[in-house]
C-alpha cells in the first residue's frame, strides 16, 4: 500500500497528482487501542499454495519452500475472518489493511461499501525492453536479463527461478480479475511490473488519497512564508522588532507567535475552503514547510490536523532525518511526508544513491503516508525518477525496490520513550536563535537542533538533548511528542524500554519498537558509515533473513528487522 505514491508517479508520466496510502500506526501511545466495530473482513482467502513466487507466497501468509520452489499453505493458512479478530484487538485500520492485502478477502464497511485491493483491476502496460537492447548497467537492472562477458558478450535473457522475472510482455503482469484463478499476488505483480524496464502500472481507480493544502511542499528555504515580515517595510503599523530578539526575549516571542497565528489562520481558511469545495476531509493535509521539530506551527496544527511535511535532505544526516520523520509520523493528527528523489537546482547537488539512503532512513523511521518528490521531471528538480520523455531513469528501479521492501517493515503501535517537546520552548528558542534573518527552520532542516542554536543563551531549555542522547546510546526506541506539560517527563512504556538490541559500537543504530498482532518487532537502522554489529535482546528473535538470534553486521544506512518468535 505504502508504495503506491511512487508507483503511481511512475505509471503516470504527466505526474499530475499525488497519491498516497494509508498511514502507519497510531501515534505511539503506550496503551492498547480501543476495540471498535467499523466493518468486517469477508471473502475466501486464496490458498497460499497457488502462489508460484516467493513474494506472492509471503504476502499470502504462505511458507516458501526454496528447495522445491513452491508455496506451502500449512504454516500460514489464514481465513478472512482472522482479520476481524485483528481489527478488534488492534484497531479497525490495522485489520482492514491486512484484510485488503490478503488476496480473496475484502473489507465491508458498516455503511455497506466494500474495499478491495487497489491493484486488482489495475493494468500493467507498455513494452518490455528486450535484453538485447540494453547496455550493461541497464541490463543488470532488468528482470530476467544478465550481462555476460563470455564471448559473444552482451545482455542475455536468463531463466530466473522467479517466474515473475521471466515475462516478456507487460500484460503478463496485469492481475487477474478473478482472485481465485490468480497464481501471483497483485502486489507482487505490481512491483514486478514497475521493476520491468518498459512497463508501467495503472491503478483501476483514480481515487484522491491526499490533497495538500498550503504553500508547498516543496518550500525549501523558509520555515514559514511570513518570515519576510521581519523586513521593516512589511510590518506596516506594527512596532519594529530589534534583531536579534534578545535580550529581552518578549518582543521576539511575540513576533514568532504573530507569524504562527497568521500562518495558522491562513491554512485553516484554506482547509475550510477545500472542504466547502467538496474535498474529502480525511484526504486533506496542511503544508508546513521546514523542520517540523523547530516549528511552532507544526506543534499547533499537528494535534488536530494531518500535516504535509518534507523529509530533511541528506545533509541533515541519518539522525536528523530519523528525528524529524519519527516526530512527524507520530503526530496526533498524522503526517504526510515528502521524500526527496532529487534536489532543486539551487541546492547543493545530491547523488541518487544518497537520496535513496535518506529515503531508507525516513521509511525505517515510520513514514507511511508518503509522496516521492521529484518523481517526475515536471517538478524541475534535478535527479527526477522519470526523464524528460517519462522514461524511468536507472535509480527509479531502486526506488521501486526500496518502497516494496519498506512495505514489509512492521507497522503497529509504536513503543518506547516519548520525549516531550513543549511548544513554548520551541517558540522561545526560535525567538532567541540570534541568527535572524537566517530562518531557524532552515538551520534545523540541515541538522542543527534548536537547542544547539540557543545553547549560548542564559536559561535556554536544554531540549532534552542529554536524555535523548542517553536513550540513543542505550538503543532504546524513542521519539519526540508535542506536550504542553509544565514539568514534562518521559513516558516510558512498561517493559519496552528494556527491549533493546545490543549495538556495537553503542549508539550506532537507530531503533524503533513496534507492537503488532503477530508479536513484537524492532526496526534497526544503522546511522554510521562503518559496519556495526547488532544482536537481538534476550529471548528468541528472528531477523528479516529468517535467522534465529545471532548477531548481524550492518553497513551504513542499512535496515534490519527483528521479530520476536512467540511459538
Amino acid at each position, binding site marked *: 500500500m505504502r508504495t503506491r505514491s511512487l508507483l503511481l508517479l511512475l505509471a503516470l508520466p504527466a505526474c499530475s497528482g499525488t497519491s498516497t496510502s494509508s498511514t502507519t500506526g497510531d501515534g505511539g501511545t503506550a496503551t492498547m487501542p480501543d476495540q471498535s466495530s467499523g466493518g468486517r473482513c469477508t471473502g475466501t482467502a486464496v490458498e497460499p499454495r497457488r502462489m508460484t513466487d516467493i513474494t506472492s507466497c509471503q504476502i499470502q501468509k504462505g511458507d516458501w519452500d526454496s528447495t522445491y520452489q513452491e508455496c506451502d499453505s500449512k504454516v500460514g493458512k489464514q481465513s478472512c475472518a482472522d482479520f476481524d479478530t485483528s481489527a478488534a484487538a488492534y484497531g479497525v485500520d490495522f485489520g482492514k489493511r491486512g484484510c485488503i492485502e490478503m488476496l480473496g478477502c475484502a473489507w465491508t464497511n458498516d455503511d455497506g461499501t466494500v474495499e478491495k485491493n487497489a491493484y486488482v483491476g489495475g493494468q500493467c502496460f507498455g513494452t518490455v525492453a528486450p535484453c538485447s537492447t540494453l547496455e550493461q*548497467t541497464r541490463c543488470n*537492472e532488468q528482470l530476467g536479463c544478465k550481462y555476460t562477458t563470455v564471448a559473444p558478450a552482451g545482455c542475455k535473457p536468463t531463466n530466473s527461478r522467479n517466474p515473475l522475472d521471466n515475462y516478456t510482455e507487460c500484460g503478463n503482469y496485469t492481475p487477474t480479475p478473478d482472485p481465485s484463478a490468480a497464481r501471483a499476488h497483485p502486489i507482487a505483480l505490481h512491483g514486478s511490473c514497475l521493476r520491468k524496464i518498459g512497463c508501467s502500472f495503472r491503478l483501476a481507480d483514480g481515487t484522491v488519497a491526499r490533497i495538500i493544502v498550503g504553500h508547498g511542499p516543496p518550500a525549501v528555504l523558509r520555515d514559514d512564508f511570513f518570515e519576510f515580515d*521581519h*523586513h*521593516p*517595510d512589511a510590518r506596516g503599523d506594527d512596532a519594529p522588532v530589534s*534583531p*536579534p530578539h534578545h535580550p529581552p526575549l518578549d518582543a521576539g516571542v511575540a513576533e514568532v507567535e504573530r507569524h504562527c497565528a497568521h500562518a495558522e489562520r491562513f491554512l485553516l481558511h484554506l482547509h475550510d475552503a477545500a472542504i466547502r469545495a467538496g474535498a474529502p476531509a480525511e484526504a486533506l493535509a496542511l503544508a508546513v514547510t521546514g523542520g517540523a521539530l523547530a516549528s511552532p506551527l507544526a506543534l499547533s496544527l499537528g494535534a488536530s490536523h494531518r500535516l504535509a511535511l518534507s523529509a530533511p535532505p*541528506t*545533509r*541533515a*544526516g*541519518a*539522525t*536528523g*532525518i530519523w528525528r524529524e520523520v519519527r516526530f512527524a509520523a507520530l503526530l496526533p493528527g498524522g503526517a504526510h511526508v515528502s521524500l526527496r528523489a532529487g*534536489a532543486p*537546482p539551487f541546492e*547543493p*547537488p*545530491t*547523488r*541518487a*544513491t*544518497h*537520496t535513496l*539512503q*535518506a529515503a531508507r*532512513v525516513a521509511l525505517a523511521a515510520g513514514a507511511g503516508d508518503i509522496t516521492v518528490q521529484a518523481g517526475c*521531471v515536471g517538478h*524541475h528538480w*534535478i*535527479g527526477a525518477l522519470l*526523464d*524528460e520523455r517519462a522514461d524511468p*531513469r*536507472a*535509480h527509479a*528501479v*531502486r526506488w521501486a525496490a526500496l518502497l516494496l521492501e519498506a512495505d514489509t517493515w512492521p507497522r503497529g503501535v509504536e513503543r518506547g520513550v516519548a520525549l516531550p517537546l513543549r511548544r513554548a520552548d520551541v517558540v522561545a528558542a526560535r525567538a532567541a*536563535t*540570534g*541568527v*535572524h*534573518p*537566517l530562518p531557524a527552520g532552515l*538551520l534545523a532542516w540541515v*541538522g*542543527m*537542533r534548536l537547542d*544547539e*542554536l540557543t*545553547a*549560548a543563551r542564559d536559561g535556554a531549555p536544554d531540549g532534552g538533548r542529554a536524555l535523548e542522547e542517553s536513550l540513543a546510546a542505550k538503543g532504546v526506541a524513542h521519539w519526540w511528542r508535542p506536550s504542553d506539560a509544565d514539568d514534562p517527563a518521559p513516558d516510558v512504556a512498561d517493559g519496552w524500554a528494556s527491549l533493546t538490541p545490543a549495538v556495537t559500537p553503542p549508539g550506532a543504530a537507530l531503533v524503533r519498537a513496534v507492537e503488532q498482532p503477530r508479536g513484537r518487532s524492532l526496526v534497526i537502522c*544503522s*546511522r*554510521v*558509515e562503518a559496519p556495526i554489529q547488532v544482536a537481538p535482546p534476550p529471548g528468541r528473535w528472528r531477523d528479516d533473513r529468517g535467522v534465529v538470534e545471532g548477531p548481524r553486521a550492518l553497513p*551504513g*544506512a542499512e535496515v534490519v528487522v527483528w521479530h520476536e518468535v512467540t511459538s
Partner: protein
Amino acid sequence: MRITGFDARSWHRLVTLVAPGFASHAPVASERGARAEGGALFVLYQETGVVRALHSLRGAVTLPGWEGPASLEACARALQTRFAVAAEVGALEELYERVGGRLDPKDGLAETALLVADAVRELAREGELHMVPSLNRSVPLPPPEVVQRAWDAVLPDGYCFTMALYEGVELETGFVARRRGGAVDLVLGPEALRRLTGPLGGDFRRDHRVIRAAVEREVAPLACGVFAPTATVRELLREEAAGAWARAIATRDVVVDPMPPWIAMAASAGAVRAVVSRSRRLFAGLEVLGLLGPFAAQATGVLAGLDLKGLLGFDPLDIIGVIVRRSESARRPSDDEHEP
C-alpha cells in the same frame, strides 16, 4: 530558464567541478562531515562577544580564540575552514534593507547580483561584514554596462555555449546553455545532448564535430564549445601556473570548437602572448608540430580586440581557481561507482 536533461549524477559532476565543497554526502556520513576539513563558518558577533557561530558541517560551534573580527581568519584556520563570514549584529538586516531599497523589478540577474555584491562590499568597508578570503579587495565590481558588454562577448544573444566532459569513452556530464532575449533561457544536460547527437564515438577529439553539428542544428548557433575529459578540466581549474589552459588547448587535451575571441582570455593571455613573442622556446616543439598554429594565430588576432581581464578588472577563472583550490579537501566526486 528551463533546465532539462540532467540526472543526479551528471548534475553532481558538473556542479562539483567548480564547487567541490558542494559534493554530496550520504546521510550516514554526517558524522564524518563534522570531523572533516572544509565547510564554511558564519559568525554573528556583538562588539567583542560571539552571539552565535555556525559551521556548515559541524553545526553550532564555540570560538574560544575569538578576539573580534580581526581574529576571524585564525578562528577559521583553527576549525580547518577556508571560507568564513563574520557579521555584526544587525548587519544582515542592514544588508536586506539596503538591497531592498535599491532593487528594481526591472533589473536583470546581472544587475541584481551586482547590486547585492555592492551592498556587501559597502558593509565590508564599513566594518560590519568580514570575509575569508577577502575577495572584495581583488575583485573590483564593474558597472552593469561593462558586465553586459562582457556577457555579450562571451555569449551573444541567440547563440549557445556548450561544454561536453568525458570520462573514458563516456559523455559524463556537460551542458548546452542558450541565450535568448538577453537571458539564458535553456540549459540542456547530457541526456538531452545524447538525444540530439545520437550514438557518439567516445573520443572527444572526434565527437566534438558531431556535437557541434547537432547543437547548431537543434538548438542555436554555437558561440563556443569546450570538449575535454573531466579530470583534465578539474586539474586545469586547480592549476595556479599561467599558461596551463594554453598548453592544454595546444596539445588538444582540451578542444575548443568554435573558438571565440574571449577564449584567448581563458587560455591565459599571458601564456599565449609568450608563445607568439618572446617565449617561443616554451612551446617550440608544439609550433614545429603545427599544433598551436591555428590557435595561436587566432588568439593573437583577437587579443588586441578583447581582453576580459582588462574589461572586467579581474579574471573569472582566477576566482573559480581560488574556490576550487580552497575546497581541495572536499571529497572528490570520484567515489560514485555505484551510482545508477
